C-alpha cells in the first residue's frame, strides 16, 4: 500500500465535482425520508420499506458506483494513470491503496446517509438504524469493490455500473426470485433480517442465510479484486498516438 497513491485517490474522489453529486444523492435520500415520515407518520414499516427498496436498493449502489469508479476511472480515461503505473510499484499495491480510500469514503457516505435517513423517516428505538447500518456497511464494501473492478475492466464503467445498480439491484432484486439470490442487496440484508426478528411490525426479509450471504459477498470481492489487478498489470496506457 502506498501513501502517495492513497492521497491522490482521496483528492480525486473528494476534490472533484463528483463529491457534490454524492452530497446531492444524500440530500435526495433525506428528502425522501422526510416525505416518508410525512406520509406515514413515522411508522417503522414504511421506513423499512423505503430504505430497503430505495435507500439500500438503489441509492447505496449508485453512491458506491460514483466512489468506486471515481478513484480510478477518470485517470484511465484521460491517460493520467500512467503516472502511477510507470512507477516501481506492484499493481496489487496500487489497487489496494486506491480501493481502501474508496471503501473508507463510501462507508462514511453510505452508512452516514442511511442512518440519518432512517432516523428522519421514523425508527423503532434505533433498531432499524442499527440493522441498516450493518447492511449498508456490508453492501458498501461489496459494491465499491465490484465497481472499482468494473472501472478497470470496462470501457464504459459508468454505464455498465448504472445499469447494474438501477436495473439489477434497484429493481429486479426487489421481486424476481432468481435475481434476488444473486444480488448484493439480498446478501447484505441477511444480518438485518436476524437483527429485526423481534420487531414484528417490520418485515425485512432476505432470501439467503447470513452465512451464505457473507460467503457470496467475500467471494464476489475476491474475484473482482483479482480480475482488477490482473487487468491493471496489462493496461496499455498508449505511450503515443
Amino acid at each position, binding site marked *: 500500500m502506498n501513501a502517495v497513491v492513497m492521497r491522490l485517490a482521496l483528492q480525486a474522489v473528494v*476534490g472533484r465535482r463528483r463529491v457534490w453529486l454524492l452530497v446531492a444523492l444524500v440530500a435526495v435520500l433525506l428528502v425522501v425520508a422526510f416525505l416518508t415520515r410525512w406520509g406515514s407518520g413515522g411508522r417503522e414499516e414504511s421506513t423499512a420499506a423505503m430504505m430497503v427498496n430505495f435507500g439500500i436498493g438503489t441509492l447505496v449502489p449508485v453512491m458506491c458506483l460514483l466512489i468506486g469508479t471515481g478513484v480510478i476511472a477518470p485517470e484511465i480515461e484521460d491517460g493520467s494513470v500512467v*503516472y502511477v503505473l510507470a*512507477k*516501481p*510499484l506492484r499493481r496489487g499495491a496500487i489497487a489496494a491503496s486506491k480501493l481502501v480510500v474508496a471503501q473508507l469514503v463510501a462507508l462514511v457516505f453510505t452508512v452516514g446517509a442511511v442512518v440519518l435517513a432512517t432516523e428522519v423517516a421514523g425508527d423503532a428505538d434505533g433498531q432499524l438504524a442499527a440493522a441498516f447500518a450493518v447492511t449498508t456497511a456490508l453492501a458498501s464494501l461489496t459494491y465499491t469493490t465490484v465497481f472499482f473492478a468494473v472501472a478497470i475492466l470496462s470501457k464504459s464503467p459508468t454505464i455498465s455500473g448504472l445499469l447494474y445498480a438501477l436495473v439489477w439491484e434497484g429493481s429486479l432484486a426487489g421481486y424476481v426470485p432468481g435475481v434476488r439470490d444473486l444480488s448484493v442487496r439480498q446478501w447484505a440484508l441477511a444480518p438485518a433480517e436476524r437483527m429485526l426478528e423481534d420487531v414484528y411490525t417490520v418485515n425485512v426479509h432476505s432470501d439467503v442465510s447470513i452465512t451464505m450471504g457473507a460467503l457470496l459477498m467475500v467471494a464476489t470481492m475476491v474475484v473482482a479484486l483479482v480480475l482488477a489487478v490482473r487487468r491493471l498489470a*496489462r*493496461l496499455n496506457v*498508449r*505511450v*503515443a498516438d
Partner: protein
Amino acid sequence: MSTLELTSVSRWFGNVVAVNDVTMTIGPGVTGLLGPNGAGKSTLLAMMSGFLAPSSGTVTLDGAPVWRNPSIYSQIGIVPEAEALYDAMTAGQFVEANARLHGLPQPREAARAAIDAVDMTFAVDRTVGTFSKGMKQRIKMATALVHSPAVLLLDEPFNGMDPRQRMHLLELLHRLGDEGRTVLFSSHILEEVEDIAGTIEVVVAGRQAASGDFRSIRRLMTQRPHQYAISSSDNRALAAAIIADGTADAVSVSADAVVVQASNFGAFVHALPRLALSHDIELHDVTPADESLESVFTYLVSR
C-alpha cells in the same frame, strides 16, 4: 550503462501486423526511431516501456523482461502522451508526487532539480491546469527525469514545439546522451533526428528498414534515383533526346508523359531545358515524382 534489447519482436492486433520481426539494440547515447506515421513506432515504444506485450519475441532491459515487471520503472523514464496531468496540483507538487511514487529518498530536492533541468523553475508554484501545452510538455519531461533514469523513452517529443522549445529539448537530450544515458525518441522528420541522434533506426510498415548513423542513412536515401514526369509537345522526340543525352538512367514513354529516372538529377535538370530547346520541343509540365518521406522509406525497405 543500460541496453534495451528487442529480439524478433512482432506485434499484431487481430489481422493487422503493427510490428514485424524487429531486432534491435538500443544502447547508451541518443537513438532516433525514424519512420512515417503508422510505421509502428508508437507500438514499439509501448512495448519497450512495458505497457504492451509483444505477440512474439522479447523485449529486455539489461536482460530483465520489461513486460509485467514494474521494478523496471526505476530505470526507465517515460514521457507520456497523455495530455492530462493532475491539474489541481502545482508543478512542484506534481513532480514531487512522482518523486515520492518512485520512492526517492529526497523527493522534494529531486523534484526541484528536475524542474530546474527543464527550465520550469519560474512556474514551480503555479497550478498545472493553467499551463500551456509547451509548459505541460516540459513538466512531463521533469517527471520522466526526476528519478534520474538510465533509459529515457520519448514519443514524438518535438511535435508541436516552437523553435525555441525545440532547441531546449535538443540541448537537454544531448546532455542526457552525453551523460551516458540511453535516450530513444521517435519522429517522422529526418532533420529532427539528424540533429542529435547518434544512431538512427528506420522503421517502415512494421519492419526495420535501416539502421546506422545519420550519414549512412542519408547516403542510402540520396542514392535513390529521382523520378520526373514530363509532358511536352512531342514526348517521343524528347524521350529519344534524353536517352541519347545519357544523363538519365531510365526513360519510359506513354501517350501523355515521359517518365524519367535519374540518379544524377543535378546533371539531368540542367540538360533537360537544353535538350528541349535544341530539338524545338515545348515543355508543358515537369513534375518531380513523390518526394514524400513515405516513398523514401518505402524505397529503403525495398532495397
